[in-house]
C-alpha cells in the first residue's frame, strides 16, 4: 500500500488518476470495437423487429379513418356533449364532408373506409353510409337531421351518432375491446359483446389450452428420447439424433401435408384401423381438420425443440450420480426422482418455454390441418391482416397475444427462474 492509497479509500494508479477511471480508459477502445461488431445485428433487429412491433402497437390504438374521411366533422362532433342529438350545424358539416368524400378517390379517404370503420362498431351499418353519401349532395338546406332520417331511418338511432363521435377520434381502445369480445354501448360504457360476436376470447383460451397440451405431450414424448440419446453409445446416438433432426430439414408444408395423408378419413391410419378391424368402414375417425389434427401435427413439428434442450442438459449429467444414489440405498425410481430429474429441470424449463411460445403463435399448421375447430389465435390475426384488412383489430389481437406470452413468461420466471434455463 502506498501513501496515496492510505490517504483515501479510492485506489489510484501510479500517476494518481483513480484506478477505475484508468481501467475504463484502457478498455474503452475494446468495448467500442465490440459494440461496432454487433451493429449489423442491432440495426437488423431494429428494422425487422422493434419497428414492426412498435408499428403494431401503435396501429392497435391509432385509427385515423374517421378524421381522414370527414376531417371537418371529426373536429366538430367532439364538441357535442352526447345529450340529445348533435346540433344541426354539426350535422351540416357531416353532410358536406360526406359529399366531399364521395368525390374523393384517394386511398383510405373514401366513404367506404368510413362505412367499414363504423361497421366494426355497429355491424350491418355499412349500407347506411354508402346510401347516405350517394344522396348527401342533394341535401341543400336544414334541418339536416330530418333530411338524413328521410334517407334512412337509422339516423334516428342516437347510437350511430355516438359511434361516429368515437370513430372520428384518432386514438381509440375499441379494437382492444373488440379483441376481448367487448364494446361500447350508447352511453359509452363498456359492455360484453352480443353472444354471437364473442369469438376472440374463446379462441384465445383455446390457443393457450392447446399450446399447453402440445407442450405437455412434447415433454412426455421427448423426455425418454432425450434420455436414450444421452446414454447410448456415440455412434447409435448420432444416428438417432439425425432421425430427430430430420424433420428440421424437411419443409414444414411437406410435413404437414404428410399428416393429412396419414390422418384423413380415407388416410393411412384409418385404413389400417379398418383393415385390422378396430373400427368399421362406416365409422372412420375424423382425425384431421379439427383440433386433434392440429395437436398431432404440431406435437410432431415442435418435438425437436423439446428434445434438443433436454438432451444437451442430460448429456452433462454423469451416470455416476445415479450410481451414487443407488449405492446409498435409493431405488431406481427414487434415484431418478430425487437425483436425476431435478438436474434436468433447466432443460425441461427451456424446452417447455420454447415449445409453448412457438405453439401459441403457430400459424401454418393449424391453417392447413385445423379445419374450423383447430384454428388458433394467430389464424384469426392473419385473417384480419390479410382478408378483412382490419389491421387495427389484428394488431390489437397480436398485442394481446404478446402480452399473454409476456405475462406467462413472467410467471414462469417466478416459478423456474430464467437464469436456470439451459437451451444447450
Amino acid at each position, binding site marked *: 500500500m502506498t501513501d496515496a492509497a492510505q490517504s483515501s479509500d479510492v485506489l489510484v494508479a501510479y500517476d494518481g488518476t483513480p484506478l477505475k477511471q484508468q481501467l475504463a480508459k484502457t478498455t474503452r477502445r475494446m468495448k467500442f470495437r465490440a459494440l461496432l461488431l454487433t451493429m449489423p445485428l442491432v440495426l437488423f433487429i431494429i428494422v425487422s423487429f422493434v419497428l414492426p412491433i412498435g408499428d403494431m402497437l401503435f396501429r392497435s390504438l391509432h385509427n385515423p379513418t374517421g378524421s381522414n374521411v370527414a376531417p371537418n366533422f371529426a373536429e366538430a362532433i367532439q364538441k357535442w356533449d352526447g345529450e340529445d342529438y348533435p346540433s344541426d350545424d354539426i350535422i351540416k358539416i357531416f353532410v358536406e364532408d360526406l359529399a366531399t368524400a364521395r368525390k374523393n378517390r384517394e386511398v383510405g379517404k373514401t366513404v367506404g373506409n368510413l362505412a367499414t370503420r363504423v361497421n366494426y362498431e355497429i355491424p350491418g351499418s355499412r349500407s347506411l353510409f354508402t346510401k347516405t353519401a350517394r344522396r348527401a349532395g342533394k341535401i341543400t338546406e336544414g334541418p339536416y337531421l330530418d333530411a338524413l332520417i328521410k334517407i334512412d331511418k337509422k339516423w334516428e338511432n342516437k347510437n350511430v351518432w355516438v359511434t361516429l363521435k368515437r370513430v372520428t377520434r384518432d386514438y381509440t381502445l375499441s379494437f382492444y375491446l373488440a379483441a376481448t369480445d367487448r364494446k361500447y354501448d350508447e352511453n359509452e360504457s363498456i359492455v360484453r359483446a352480443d353472444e354471437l360476436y364473442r369469438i376472440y376470447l374463446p379462441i384465445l383460451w383455446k390457443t393457450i389450452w392447446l399450446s399447453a397440451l402440445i407442450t405437455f405431450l412434447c415433454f412426455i414424448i421427448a423426455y425418454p428420447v432425450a434420455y436414450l440419446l444421452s446414454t447410448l453409445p456415440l455412434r447409435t446416438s448420432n444416428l438417432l439424433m439425425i432421425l430427430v433432426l430430420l424433420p428440421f430439414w424437411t419443409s414444414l408444408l411437406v410435413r404437414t401435408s404428410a399428416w393429412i395423408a396419414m390422418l384423413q378419413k380415407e388416410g393411412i391410419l384409418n385404413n389400417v384401423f379398418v383393415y385390422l378391424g378396430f373400427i368399421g368402414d362406416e365409422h372412420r375417425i375424423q382425425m384431421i381438420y379439427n383440433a386433434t389434427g392440429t395437436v398431432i401435427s404440431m406435437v410432431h413439428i415442435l418435438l425437436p425443440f423439446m428434445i434438443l434442450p433436454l438432451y444437451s442438459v442430460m448429456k452433462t449429467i454423469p451416470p*455416476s450420480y445415479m*450410481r451414487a444414489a443407488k*449405492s446409498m440405498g*435409493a431405488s431406481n425410481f427414487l434415484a431418478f426422482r430425487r*437425483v436425476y430429474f431435478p438436474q434436468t429441470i433447466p432443460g425441461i424449463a427451456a424446452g417447455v418455454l420454447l415449445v409453448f411460445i412457438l405453439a401459441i403463435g403457430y400459424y401454418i399448421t393449424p391453417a392447413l390441418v385445423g379445419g374450423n375447430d383447430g384454428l388458433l389465435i394467430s389464424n384469426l390475426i392473419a385473417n384480419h391482416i390479410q382478408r378483412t384488412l382490419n389491421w387495427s383489430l389484428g394488431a390489437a389481437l397480436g398485442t394481446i397475444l404478446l402480452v399473454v406470452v409476456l405475462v406467462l413468461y413472467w410467471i414462469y420466471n417466478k416459478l423456474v427462474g430464467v437464469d436456470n434455463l439451459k437451451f444447450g
Partner: protein
Amino acid sequence: MSTRSAGSDDSYVRFENVQKSYDGEVLVVKDLNLDIRKGEFVTMLGPSGSGKTTCLMMLAGFEPATHGEIFLNNRPINAVPPNKRGIGMVFQNYALFPHMTVAENLAFPLQVRGMSKFEQEDRVKRVLEMVELPQMGGRRPAQLSGGQQQRVAVARALVFEPDLVLMDEPLGALDKQLREQMQYEIKHIHENLGVTVVYVTHDQTEALTMSDRVAVFEDGVIQQLSSPQALYEDPQNSFVAQFIGENNKLNGTVERVTKDICDVKLDNGSMVKAQKVNVSGKGDRTTLSLRPERVELDPPKSHKNVIEGRIEELIYLGDHIRVRMNVAGNDEFIVKVRNRSDRKPLAEGETKTIGWASEDCKALDLVA
C-alpha cells in the same frame, strides 16, 4: 497367485471364480478369486484397463459378473441390486449431487432409509465433524474446494454406517500435497471406524501408504496379493517388481540352483547369485530384479556379488544422489547413494564396482 480359503469364516468379501466380459470376446477379468477380511483395507492396484475398476463395479452391483459368484458376509450377492447391498461408495469425481446442499447430500442415504429428521440431523452433524467440515452443511458442492468435496464424498459414503466402503480412485482429482494429506485422513477414518475398505487406484504410493493388503492387477488377473512390504521386498514376478517402486533389470540364464539361491550367468558373462523366486531350474532365462537402494557402490571385497559398471550420469537430489550406470549392457541401471558427509566423490565416466546381498536380488520371469 491369489490366496483362497473357500468358506473361511473370517472372509467378509469373497470373489469366487469371477469372470467378466463386456463384449463376449475379451475377458476383462479372468478367473478372479479374492478374500477380504472384515475391517481390512484392501487396495486394487493396477494400470488402467487392468480390470480393477470392473471388479469394484461388480462388487458394488453396477456391473453383473459374467461368471462366478461374489459373496458378502457369506451371502451370494449376484442377484442383489446395488441399492440393497448396503455398500458405501466414493466415486472418482465424488458424484456429489449439485442441486443439494452438503447437508442434503449427506442426509440423502438416511432419508432413503426412512430415518427421522432428528436422527438425520444428528448424524449429518457428527459425520461433518468427523471430516472436519462442521460449518459447511449449508453450502453447495460447487462452493467447496476439491479437497472439501472429497471429504464430503467420504462422509456421504460413511454416514449410513455401512460395513463395507468402496473407493474408486477418490484422490485422482487432487493435487499432490492434498492427496497425501487425504491419504492419511482416509487411513485414520478407516482405523477409527473399523470399516472394511476396498480401494481402487493406479497410484502405487497411495496403495502402499494406506493398505493392509494390496492386490496388483494386470490383464484381468491378480498378479500378487500381499502386504505393502511384501509387495515391495518380495515381488513374485517381474510385472510386480517393475510396477511397484523403482527396479533395476538384469537379464541372464540360470546355471545352478542350490536351495533358494541360484547362480545366474548374466548376458555379458559375469556370474551373480540371486534369490530363486520365479524360475524353475537350470537353463531358464531370467530377469533379475534389484532395488536401487539395495545396491552398494564400491562394496567391501567380502561381498558375494560384485561386478563392474560405468557411471553414465549423476543426478543430485538432496537426500541422495542418483547414479545412472551401465551395468552388464544395461545403461539404465540406477544406484541410489545416500548423501552422507563421508561419501566419496563420484565422476561421470568412472568405472566402479557395485555389489549386493544375494537375498536382495530376485530371479524372476524373463522380461524381453
